[in-house]
Every structure is written in C-alpha cells, then in structure tokens.
C-alpha cells in the first residue's frame, strides 16, 4: 500500500459561483453529467492506491456528506482508517485560510500513519497521476512537490517561478491571467513532518496564509519545492461562467478523454439508473447525456445529467440540465443552467447569453 495519506480541503467556495453554491460547497458541484467535483480528488487518490483520506469541511456540507457516504465507491470504507470527514469542531468554525482549517484538524494530522500527505482542493477537476507525483517527490528528496499547470486557470491563483533545476525559486500570490512562471493547482505532496512544520511556523508567527507564510516561509528558510507539471486538461471552477465553460469543454472529445482517461477511472456515487431512451423525434447534436433520461425533444451543445426528461418538441441549446429536472414539451431554452429538480413548463422560452448564463436554482418551477 502506498505510503501516502490524502487530505482534501472542501472548506471554501468562490462567491462568484452565486446560486450554484447556495445549497452546497463548490466541492460538491455537479459536473459533466454525473459527477461531483470532489470525485476527481477522491478518484485520483484511489487510483494511486491511497485508502486513508481526511476531508476538511466548513459549512454547507450536507450534500457533500450525502454524496461521499462511507466512501465505499472509492474503496475508502475500511475497518481501520478509510474516509474520515472532518467538520469544524473547535473555535468559531470560521476559517480565514487553509492554515486555520489545518490547525483545526491538527490532532488528526498528527495521528496520520503514513509518512507522506497529499494536500489538495476538493473543487479541482483534473485527472492527476498521484502515484507518479509521489514517486517523483520521494526520488527528488524535495521538501514539497507542487503540481502545476502551464498557462493560467480561471480566477486568482498562485504561481511559482521555476529555476532550471525544476525547483521553485519564488512564489507569486494571487495572480490573475497568464504571466511568468507556472500556475499552482494547489495539489501538494510533502512529508507529514513538513506539513506540521508549516502549520507550526504559521501558528507561531500568528500568520494565517498557507501560501504566503507557509510555502513562502519554507522557501525563505532554504526549503526546496519541486515543480511537477501536469499538462493534461484542468478545470479550476471559480465562477458561473467558468462552470459553464468547463462543462462545455467536456463536449470536446480530446479534453473529455484527458479528464476521464481509461487507465484512471473517475468514480462517483452510483444510482442504478436505466439506460437513456431516445424517442422517435429525438435529436442529439454534440451533447453529453447521462443515464436515466428520456429524450423526446432536441438537445444541442448540452450537458444533461441523470434522470432528466426533455419533452417532445422542446429545443435545448447550450444548456446544462442537472439531475431529475423536467423540461416540458415545446419549451425553448438557450444558455440555461438548470440546477437539480427544476421544472420548466411546456412552451416556456428562456434565454441567457454566451456571456451570462441564466441559472435556475435547485427545485425552481418556471
């Protein structure tokens, strides 16, 4: 068994996700027709052979609890160890940053049996070969290995300047858009002792920033951060527009196969749906459709989740329709994101725009 423990941060949601995170955290956002974002972190760990995983949560986590259950979908329901959910249990439950959240679970971290810890966000959609990251990390002897991507992901992010030897020389905080260096995906592997050292250093200085004080401090003290480049598709979802774009990216077979490679399957909570049925007049052009749907109308450039009904004569273009929503006959929808259990009556016309998609909140009726 791999000498690695998973620690997933599912504590924070970007405000720009608006209605989508009213009822959940960004880690439990439904994605690509049948997944939740946290499935990628859990599956990356599972595919690397990691079975002991802690999930740090802060608020709005009931949908996350429901989704993960005992962790059996990811082989993490074990007699010893396995999946541990870590809601706030001391202080105000308000985390100012990653360090606050980690301090809160310090006792858990101290009890970790493995020598190494993989720390990551629960809201990153990427298929990362953590076994290889771990191998490179141990071989390099670095203090920390940071998984980074070329270009710039959506929203504010941290960047590393990389020296010729492949180690970080500098960390640049909260950048937007492309600039020098590489973008951190906030997936780190380090020894348990290094992680505890970072928490202590921040704690003693009354600092609270993992990247600024923790990793920055480590670099300043002569610590070595190895950069591991991940060149396949990545979605770091920070806004409604970013959420829409990342879902639409899944209609591109190249990107889809990078996020769902055959050799590293992404697992999620099962539901025993039947296959999807297409009626006599159905049309599906360039759309992704999960199981359990009945499609009688037309879907074009859409992502359709499990159990959705699209009535006869309905025309859906550029839409994301989440689980168990029902679109009535002859409705016309364009640039709509319908959350779970939405009902759109027959004949209704609704349009967002390419720049501003219209979000129908969970359970709404139109």
């Amino acid at each position, binding site marked *: 068994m791999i000498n690695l423990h998973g620690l997933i941060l599912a504590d924070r949601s970007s405000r720009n996700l608006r209605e989508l995170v009213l009822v959940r955290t960004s880690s439990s956002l439904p994605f690509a027709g049948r997944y939740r974002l946290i499935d990628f972190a859990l599956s990356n760990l599972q595919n690397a052979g990691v079975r002991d995983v802690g999930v740090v949560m802060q608020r709005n986590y009931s949908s996350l609890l429901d989704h993960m259950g005992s962790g*059996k979908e990811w082989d993490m329901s074990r007699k010893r160890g396995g999946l541990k959910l870590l809601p706030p249990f001391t202080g105000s439950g308000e985390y100012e940053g990653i360090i606050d959240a980690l301090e809160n679970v310090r006792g858990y971290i101290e009890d970790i049996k493995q020598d190494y810890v993989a720390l990551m966000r629960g809201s990153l959609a990427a298929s990362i070969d953590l076994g290889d990251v771990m191998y490179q990390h141990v071989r390099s002897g670095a203090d920390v290995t940071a998984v980074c991507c070329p270009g710039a992901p959506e929203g504010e992010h941290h960047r590393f300047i990389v020296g010729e030897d492949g180690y970080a020389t500098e960390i640049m905080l909260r950048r937007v858009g492309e600039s020098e260096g590489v973008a951190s995906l906030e997936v780190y592997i380090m020894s348990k002792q290094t992680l505890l050292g970072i928490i202590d250093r921040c704690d003693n200085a009354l600092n609270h920033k993992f990247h600024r004080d923790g990793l920055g401090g480590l670099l300043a003290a002569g610590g070595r951060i190895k950069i591991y480049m991940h060149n396949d598709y990545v979605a770091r979802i920070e806004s409604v527009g970013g959420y829409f774009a990342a879902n639409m990216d899944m209609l591109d077979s190249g990107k889809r196969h990078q996020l769902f490679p055959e050799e590293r399957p992404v697992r999620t909570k099962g539901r025993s749906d039947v*296959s999807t049925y297409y009626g006599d007049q159905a049309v599906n052009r360039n759309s992704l*459709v999960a199981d359990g749907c009945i499609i009688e109308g037309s879907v074009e450039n859409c992502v359709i989740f499990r159990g959705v009904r699209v009535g006869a004569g309905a025309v859906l273009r550029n839409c994301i329709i989440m689980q168990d929503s029902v679109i009535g006959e002859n409705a016309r929808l364009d640039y709509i994101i319908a959350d779970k259990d939405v009902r759109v009556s027959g004949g209704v016309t609704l349009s967002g725009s390419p720049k501003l998609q219209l979000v129908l909140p969970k359970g709404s009726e139109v």
Partner: protein
Amino acid sequence: MNRKCIAMLLAGGQGSRLYALTKDVAKPSVPFGGKYRIIDFPLSNCANSGIDVVGVLTQYKPLQLNSYIGSGQAYDLDSSDGGVFILPPYQSAGEKGSWFSGTANAIYQNIAFIENYDPENVLILSGDHIYKMDYSDMLREHVQHDAACTIAVKQVSMEEATRFGILSCGGDGYINEFEEKPKQPKSDLASMGIYIFNWKKLRAALIADENDPNSSKDFGKNIIPNMLAAGEKLWPYKFDGYWRDVGTIVSLWDANMDMLGNTLMDLFDASWPIRSKSPIRPPHYAGPDSKIQHSIVTEGCEVYGQVSNSVLSSSVTVGNGAQVFYSILMPGASVGDGAVVKYAIIGENTRVQAGARVGSEPDGSEDWNVATCGPNIEIGAGAVVKAGAMIYDSVAAGEGSDAK
C-alpha cells in the same frame, strides 16, 4: 436463525442455444437491455421483495458471474446476517464430488446450505427470465393456501403451450395436473419455473428423488409430479406482468427490443428498481452528425453515426457514417466508420471494423435470422456477416461469412 423464506437461484445453465454468446460465460451473465445482465432481474426482485438470503448455484463457466455478483452490494443484498452466496458443486468427506445432474439435484447437493438458515420456505428461481415480480406477494398466497408448493403461472397461447410445463386446476383452485411440454396441452396455464416450496416437504421430496435411480432429478419432470401424486396441495400463483424467457437468439433479441420505450416493462419505475453493477463511465456523447432514434443508449458510449431501434450497452462506439438498425450492441462493442449493422447482436468488446456489414433486414425467407457475433472478436474492414450467421471467431478483412 429462522427465516420465513430464502431463495435459491439456478444459474448453472450453459444456454447452448445462445452458444456464440455463452461460449465463455454462463447464460445469466449475458448482457441485457443496455445496463443489465440477465441475472440482475431475479436478484433485484429478491432485494425488492425483502428476501435477504440468495444462494446462486453455478456450474457452467461461473468466473464472470462470480466477479459480477461479488458481495451483492449492487443489489443492497450485502447484509451482515444474509447476502448472496455463490454455490458451486463441491466434494464432501468420503464422497466423490459430482456435478449437478439436474435442477433438483443441484438443490439436493446444497441442503446443508439451506439448513443453515432453517427456513420455513424456499423460493426456487432460474437465471434466464426477464420479469419483475414481487415474491413476497407469492409467498403470502403460498402461506394463505397452506400449499406444499406454489408455482408461478402465466397464461400463454395454445401454440406456445407445448414448450412449457402446463398445469390444470380443479374447482378449489388447487393444481390437479402437471405435464411437462405436452403434445396436446389441456390448458393454457404455463409454469414460469418459479416455485416456492415448504422446506420440510421439499427436503423430503429431494431425498426421496435422489434415491430413485430412474429419476432425471428435475423439478418439472420429477419433484412436482411426485408431490402431486402424493396428494400434496399445489397452488398456482397467477402472474400477468411482463415475462420473457431469453433462451434463444430470437427471444433474446425480441426481449431487448421490448425494452425500447416504456410500454411493456417500466424500467424507470423507482418503486421497483432493477439494479446492476455497472462500470462508472462518463455520460454518453453524441456527435454533431449523429442521429439516435427510438433507441436506448448507456453511459460511456460515443455515437457519431446513425442509430435507430437499437440497444447500446455501456461504452459502445458507433463511428462516422455507420448505421446501426434493430440491433443489440453489448458492452464495449464498436462499429467502425461506415459499417452497417442491421438485425444483429454484437457481443462484448467485439470490433466491427470500417465498412463491414453485419446482418440484414428480414427478407421473408425461411432461413433469415438475426445475425450474432460472439464477444471479443473482430469483423475485419469490409467483411460481411450474413443474416442468420452465428460466429465466435474473427472474420478477416474483406471476407464474407455465412458460418452457422
């Protein structure tokens, strides 16, 4: 611990009439209806009926079936004091182990397993029928009528009746005659091969039958006629829902076609879910020039061509310009660019390469039939597999095949 009823599922059959599909797997693990394997139906019925101990008797090529059923988690049958148990033939001390020599012998060899649960009744099921049935309702009638055996029955046409076990009832409703595959059927009530027995009575009947050298050790031929002759009370449980035996290529193809639309059997009904262990794959994708009509499509599929009146199981690909009509594509099958598949069954992971042709429309001739390609083979580019062919070896590019 005493139980009211446990189930024994006979899953050892070879399914010789499906041979291209069952060369390496038992019939109950043949894929069905997009998401399922045949055995999902009786196992889901058990779970939905509240039966929490199921013995699955295997014999022929059980490996895939064993790994598919696993702990029974997919059916929520993995409970702490019950579950799904795979029961292969085994050897006892001082005895020569033997294969199951008949349906009754298979149960006889597992008397010790059944005794573990000390059940009042035992439900006997077979692994090759597609239907939804509430066994708890059948059990209620069984207990209510104080029957030694209750047999699920279905009305069939008189022409079909010659293929089934046919029974007749007396004025009191109890069965007074049972005939296996009669030439001149006296009624249209056919046994569905689903029985609930009082365990004490069945146990005695099995032991007596085992000691009869002339018996063929079969429920329909021996156990039930013997019970009837001994004056036991046999009750018919009338079932009028959808039920299909899928023992032949045509019946398997027909029953799959029945799953298109929701009229014959509602698989979407959340109150009676049919569960399956499916690989978790991304949703299916249909390309910009695809056309999918009156068909079912499963996760992991990628469709670029035309699909109509067909069943696509998990992870099937249909290439650009390909046509799939009135066909069943089992998990992982692929149809290359421009290939044409009509009235055909394509086995698991079989690759129909670009430009190949499999099957054709019914032409009214006597020997027309659905074309069947077994699993894990390749139909080479431009090759032809004629209607009615049944093949389990690859066909080289450009070659024609009418192997039967």
